[in-house]
């Protein structure tokens, strides 16, 4: 009478207490944790700026404004993709996921151009601590974007690979695991996008 349960069986348990799927809830907790990470980095910057008289100020390269627009674009397209998915418009879903992916890659490219611009301005990684912070924080944020890109790519690959199977995505709507994962992926992207918008505003306020 051995009953061996799969992960799916275990998760059939009630979610009535918070009304949220436990894994989605765990993702929110992870966001709280990541928020603390970026809060620690940016408050370190503030402390440093406050106690170091030789804090070297400079204007943030304009390219970071474009990367901000791009990252907001990712949020919009992935949200639209989620809506299309719920309405079973899978062709549109695939295109929107592809658009999100391209925009997210573009974001990383723009960040890289931002670094090159900083170099051109003479603001190298080790030259001055005020520049070091920008490299560090953009790298830390870029790592979070890269992590989201990998998961997004996996989603996209399956969506494209199975595009001729009319049941593939539908089956997943009846069995909501894939939709849950998509929702979690979309919330993660909204999160890293909001973090970047915060970081951009923070940089603009602290570097003039």
């Amino acid at each position, binding site marked *: *009478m*051995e*009953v*061996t*349960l*799969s*992960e*799916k*069986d*275990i*998760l*059939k*348990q*009630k*979610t009535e*207490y*918070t009304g*949220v*799927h*436990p*894994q989605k*809830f*765990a993702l929110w*907790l*992870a966001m*709280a*944790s*990541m928020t*603390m*990470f970026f809060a*620690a*980095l940016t408050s*370190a910057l503030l*402390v*440093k700026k406050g*106690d*170091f008289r*030789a*804090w070297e100020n400079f204007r943030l390269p304009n390219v970071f404004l474009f990367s901000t627009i791009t990252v907001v674009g990712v949020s919009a397209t992935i949200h639209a993709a989620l809506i299309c998915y719920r309405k079973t418009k899978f062709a549109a879903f695939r295109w929107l996921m592809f658009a999100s992916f391209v925009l997210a890659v573009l974001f990383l490219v723009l960040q890289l151009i931002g670094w090159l611009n900083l170099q051109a301005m003479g603001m190298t*990684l*080790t030259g*001055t*601590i005020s520049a*070091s*912070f920008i490299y*560090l924080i953009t790298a*830390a944020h870029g790592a979070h974007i890269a992590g989201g890109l990998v998961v997004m790519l996996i989603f996209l690959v399956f969506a494209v690979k199975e595009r001729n199977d009319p049941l593939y995505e539908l089956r997943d709507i009846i069995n909501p695991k894939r939709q849950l994962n998509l929702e979690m992926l979309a919330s993660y992207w909204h999160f890293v996008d909001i973090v970047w918008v915060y970081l951009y505003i923070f940089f603009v306020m602290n570097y003039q």
Partner: protein
Amino acid sequence: MQTAHTVEHAHAHDTHEEHHHHEETFLTKYIFSQDHKMIGKQFLITGIFWGIVGGLLSVLFRLQLGWPNETFPFLETFLGKWAEGGKISNEFYYALVTMHGTILVFFVLTGGLSGTFANLLIPYQIGARDMASPFINMLSYWFFLAAGVVMLFSFFVQTGPASGGWTAYPPLNGLRDTSVNLGSGIGFDLWILGMSLFIVSALLGGLNYVATVLNMRTKGMTMMKLPLTVWALMFTAVIGILSFPALLAGAVLLEFDRLLDTSFYLNNIIINGQLLGYKGGSPILFQHLFWFLGHPEVYIIILPAMGLVSEVLSVHSRKPIFGYKAMVLSIIAILVLSFIVWAHHMFVTGLNPNLGAIFTLFTLLIAIPSAIKVFNWIGTIWRGKVRLSSAALFAIGFVSMFITGGLTGIALGNSAIDIQLHDTMFVVAHFHIVMGVAAFFGMFAGVYHWFPRMYGKYMNETLGQIHFYITLVGAYAIFFPMHFMTGLPRRYYTYANFETFNNFDSLAAFISVAAIIVFLGQLVFVVNFFYSIFKGRELKGEKKADGYEYANPWGSTTMEWTAPIDRLHGNWPNEIPAVHRWPYDFNVNGKEFIQQTEPLKPGETEHS
């Protein structure tokens, strides 16, 4: 119930054919297990390994501190160049102290304690089949193991493991130059790597613990019906989720300084008359980031122990916990306060005295919830029919240690006094008693109490009692005299150059002897633990209609004992029982105890 069982079966049949006839191999059952109970045991046994290593390191440096003029030729046999002529070198001494702290704080009392009991108890006691994500739970253990492998590996690199203190302060640890400090070389890079893996492990575990408690409780299990263990373990995880990222941020900045030559923490460093190019950094910044984790970390260590002790004391004195709500509120108060006291570790850094006063105030406020908890533990055993089992003895020992160490905390929390006592043996005595030994006592109480749940066997009671008395007397013998080594600085390799400290020589030797005895005493536990897994007295229970054997060896009210002795994946073979009452119904309505799953009788009112 039978229907539910069949449905479950049918479901497994539908979707996952392979699960139905699933043969668990050694690899899936013991190594890559996604079962919370097995992961808990993995954490425990890994923690025991690290406990032995960490304890052994302290025995080695106690040899140096107790008999600084003697040589121990066997040390050279084992340690080679680190103990030439049988005397531990000063470089290795600092490595020993550093790694002892790192290993015991993180690998034993965080990973080993929280990892073990959160995994074992949360699903069992809230009535869940497993964690919110069993896969992430497995990853949490594997990151923990990987972190340990990296740390262990660092002992075998040529320049030795990290040796700049477990607090990893720059500038000493901010330069990779081994001419300044041997352990600042590759050893410290491995330390950072190991700690980063450890942080990932703690976060993955913590997310799961909190999500599980908040979402996956069985029917009827409201928050105020949770055992105090679950409250404590959940809030421990919350503290970890919010504070570990700060350490990670601090560590990232430190590695940037070390590997990429930035100057976040370094400023105008002169080595051998050479001015290095670092400009504008501040080592104090690291201390802020470090202690923003470092202080909450001590509550990450002590809260699980508090939870375990609350449960063990109540069960073994056959009395409801005294002041359940006050206990929960105290845990919440400790959680909040733990985040706003970190600078009390930094009173001598030139911190603004006005700011110091604020941190002193918050620090002393922690005495209130702590005292409430102590009062309630004593209230719980007061006039109880206390069974002095090993578990109960260690729980009572915990309260003793927590009081002793807590009292010196009140002294140290005052900035005016701390400035005098900073970095002396008084501090060593304080934190070892209040969070080191006390947390160990809580952990031992938990292991003795829940061993039957983990392995279906009992641990040997006589060995347990011997273990307790050696540890209680020995721990006081080690740490109590340290309070009176007035002004003796900690972390020194030798005090030979200080006339004024000569009079502590015999006391230091006494402490070292006690440390060696206590270390050997812990081996009694280790032998008992592993012997009992295989040859311990069997846990006997009654067979029910479903063919499974059930046992409740301590007469507990909580849900973990409503599952069969066999550790099934999914915990309950049938539907998960619903909960009807709070977890501390001892000696009510003429019954010695009533399990949480028993419905209220007509006319009976719920405990509130």
